[in-house]
């Protein structure tokens, strides 16, 4: 029914078509406003996820400054150095398959059909026996040891090479399985986040063994046992492998440390997981003993250590000197306020040795050797790192953790806590120095699966679709032939998302982000309340929207557009003011235990530090049984509370323990505990 072409009267028809046109414009105006609104929501959602994820990574590195973890890590390195012992130690020959094991069988040397069968088996959700896992890992280790730090690959046989980054979530292989005709480069981050990380690794390693010249694996920052403790891979392995889990994890750490650091195609394209810094020098990288750097998160000790191995105050483990109080230029961070370095980590700035002294006194360290091994300061065998080792370590960290930004220059990557932010000038310099034409990296999730920057000299490729939530992003991989022109394939793995409208997709992802954000806000309730009260001059329990936004940002420091998000977070406002007490109640979730004045600070500490808590639990659980004793539980809380400068009474801890149904005779199941405190949305929207 277009413009009515009635010819009864000219006037009428004119009027009619004019009305139709006006109606059309009205609807178009309105619709465009609607989609703009949607677009902004989508961007905000994105920013929320990223802020929370990156600040989690930063937290991770902060917690690492606790010296006990360093000691544990050092013990581990010594074991690694005794390679000859390894095969005897892992002794997979004596692990017998249980009767009725229906999973896949592997025999070595692996063939292509074994590897393909493995892919099928996992597709059918089968489980690979620990014996085969260990065997596969051992063979992988033997192969990786022979490889240089930098793999050089060529397209001279007219082959197209496919590059994938950040697999994490099980790939569907619609590009085809790796083969002689189909070479692949996998750019790190194979684990954490998804539920099938170990399976992904098994498949990648299997193909590596079958096609060692066509499959190339770079190390990512998540191929690191410390990061795995935090982000879920350790938990996954323990859950799936229980008794053998610990062995598998230890062998994995060795295998990870032997993963090559970089791949170069045709001497023109550099592929690394994170990024570069001004000091990145491939010649240096080519010569280091990469397996010494079991975890990029743990810095080798500096030369000038005191008798007791105490570290100089102000330094933290990423080589970023946090005593430097010069603010990070605001242009590097989103949000209009510049965020000075020294406000980011108040806890870290306390001298670690002072902390530990207090902790030990408070906890009343017993003679229990297991605990004292973790917390002891004395160390008969100091590992003193040389200047050279520190320089090498920095090369590794930069490669695994850096991110490109649009500003020129090279500054420490404070959001991640390691590596750098590097600008287009750094890219130009480093690429020119080595005669490269392109840098391919991963490490950051991209909406469309890939993104160019720095004048198309840097390409980020991210292959895990729906990374944050169903519908959040597409994944992509890139294919290149001898012409080295990249061709991209994007995908979004879900049958249902195709049918969802953009509105539904945005809503779903947004709900997830808002939920995460609400959790964060709730975890900082006390600080927020204090700040609101300071702001509320009339003491009526209300503050203006403007003050609300400013206060929330000053407490949360997430650099988010709070005014835009406000309608999602605060349901009721009365003439431009928010009743903040009512708001906290609205934010509140179903709490598993009744909140009393004593327990409220404990609860808050719990929510805010849930990840850190879990990390510490798992470290304490040195036999990886998934259980810790009540005493260890109590000590963990004490340690955490003193490290964070909050008061948590013994009574509160006992109440907490009693209120949860611990059915394992004096032991606490870590998983049960963490599950019990997963926040439940009282008002599912």
């Amino acid at each position, binding site marked *: 029914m277009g413009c009515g072409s009635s010819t009864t009267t000219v006037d009428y028809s004119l009027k009619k078509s004019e009305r139709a046109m006006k109606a059309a414009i009205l609807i178009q105006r309105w619709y465009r406003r609607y989609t703009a609104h949607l677009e902004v929501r989508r961007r905000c959602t994105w920013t929320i996820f990223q802020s929370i994820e990156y600040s989690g990574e930063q937290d991770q590195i902060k917690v690492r400054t606790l010296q006990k973890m360093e000691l544990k890590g050092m013990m581990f390195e010594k074991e690694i150095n005794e390679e000859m012992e390894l095969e005897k130690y892992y002794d997979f020959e004596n692990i017998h398959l249980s009767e009725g094991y229906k999973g896949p069988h592997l025999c070595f040397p692996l063939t292509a059909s074994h590897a393909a069968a493995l892919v099928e088996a996992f597709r059918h959700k089968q489980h690979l026996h620990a014996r085969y896992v260990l065997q596969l890992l051992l063979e992988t280790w033997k192969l990786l040891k022979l490889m240089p730090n930098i793999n050089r690959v060529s397209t001279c046989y007219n082959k197209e090479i496919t590059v994938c980054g950040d697999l994490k979530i099980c790939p569907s292989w619609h590009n085809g399985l790796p083969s002689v005709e189909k070479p692949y480069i996998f750019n790190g981050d194979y684990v954490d986040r998804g539920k099938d990380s170990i399976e992904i690794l098994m498949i990648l390693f299997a193909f590596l063994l079958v096609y060692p010249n066509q499959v190339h694996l770079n190390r990512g920052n998540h191929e690191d046992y410390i990061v795995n403790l935090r982000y879920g891979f350790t938990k996954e392995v323990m859950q799936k492998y229980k008794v053998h889990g610990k062995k598998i994890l230890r062998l994995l750490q060795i295998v990870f440390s032997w993963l090559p650091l970089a791949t170069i195609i045709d001497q023109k394209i550099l592929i690394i997981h994170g990024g570069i810094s001004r000091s990145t020098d491939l010649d240096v990288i080519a010569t280091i003993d990469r397996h010494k750097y079991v975890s990029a998160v743990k810095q080798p000790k500096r030369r000038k250590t005191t008798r007791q191995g105490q570290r100089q105050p102000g330094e933290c483990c990423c080589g970023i000197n946090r005593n430097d109080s010069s603010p990070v230029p605001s242009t590097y961070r989103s949000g209009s306020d510049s965020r000075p370095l020294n406000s980011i980590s108040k806890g870290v700035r306390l001298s670690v040795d002072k902390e530990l002294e207090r902790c030990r006194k408070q906890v009343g360290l017993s003679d229990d050797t297991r605990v004292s091994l973790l917390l002891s300061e004395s160390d008969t065998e100091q590992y003193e790192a040389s200047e050279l080792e520190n320089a090498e370590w920095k090369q590794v960290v930069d490669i695994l953790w850096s991110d490109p930004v649009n*500003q020129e220059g090279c500054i420490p990557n404070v959001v991640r806590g390691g590596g750098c932010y590097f600008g287009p000038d750094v890219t130009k310099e480093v690429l020119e120095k080595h005669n490269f034409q392109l840098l391919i990296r991963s490490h950051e999730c991209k909406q469309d699966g890939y993104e160019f920057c720095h004048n198309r000299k840097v390409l980020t490729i991210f292959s895990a679709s729906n990374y944050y939530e169903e519908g959040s992003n597409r994944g992509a991989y890139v294919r290149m032939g001898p012409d080295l022109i990249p061709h991209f394939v994007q995908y979004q793995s879900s049958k249902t998302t195709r049918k969802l409208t953009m509105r539904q997709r945005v809503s779903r992802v947004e709900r997830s982000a808002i939920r995460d954000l609400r959790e964060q806000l709730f975890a900082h309730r006390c600080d927020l309340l204090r700040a609101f009260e300071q702001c509320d001059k009339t003491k009526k329990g209300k503050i203006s929207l*403007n003050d609300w936004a400013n206060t929330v940002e000053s407490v949360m420091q997430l650099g988010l557009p709070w005014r835009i998000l406000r309608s999602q977070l605060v349901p009721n406002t009365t003439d431009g003011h928010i009743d903040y007490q009512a708001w906290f109640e609205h934010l509140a979730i179903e709490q598993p235990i009744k909140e009393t004045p004593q327990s409220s600070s404990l609860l808050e500490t719990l929510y805010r530090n849930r990840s850190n808590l879990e990390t510490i639990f798992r470290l304490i659980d040195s036999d990886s049984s998934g259980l810790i004793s009540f005493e260890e539980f109590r000590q963990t809380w004490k340690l955490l509370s003193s490290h964070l400068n909050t008061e948590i009474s013994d009574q509160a801890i006992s109440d907490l323990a009693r209120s949860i149904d611990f059915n394992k005779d004096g032991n606490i199941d870590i998983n049960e505990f963490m599950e019990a405190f997963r926040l439940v949305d009282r008002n599912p929207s």
Partner: protein
Amino acid sequence: MAEEREIAEAMISEIHKKITDAFDVFDHEYNKTVDVREIGTIIRSLGCCPSEGELHDILAEIEDEEPTGYINFDRFLPTMTKVLMERRYRPIPEDVLLQAFEVLDQEKKGYLMPEQLTKFMSEEGEPFTQEEMEEMLSAAVDPDKNVILYKDYVTMMAVEAP
């Protein structure tokens, strides 16, 4: 008198902050500039509902004499502040929107066929792109009856006031 001025100043300050927040969401390089193609989205996200023509007028005011493809915050802020203070380009009330649909539905059926809406939106007024049309249809068309029940559609799409 002073109090009134204080209130006015506070209101302007609040408006400035709102504009800054919205601008920052699109300021990818953190240098207080945005791509000119995002200006429409930013303005609309601040609660305004201009037509494409009105957008062009605003752009003419804020773009540099030699357009660079980027808009500077310094030029955006004063213009946008005025727009908000004068409450220009107010959103369309639901009932007016409904009337617009009814104009298109000449036979007063209470619904529109997808082809009808497509023809209108792609040929009349400030025409939709194919992408816009597809997006609108994907949400507007009732999957069972394959028609657009515009009354329900309008209700469903109600946007919260910022």
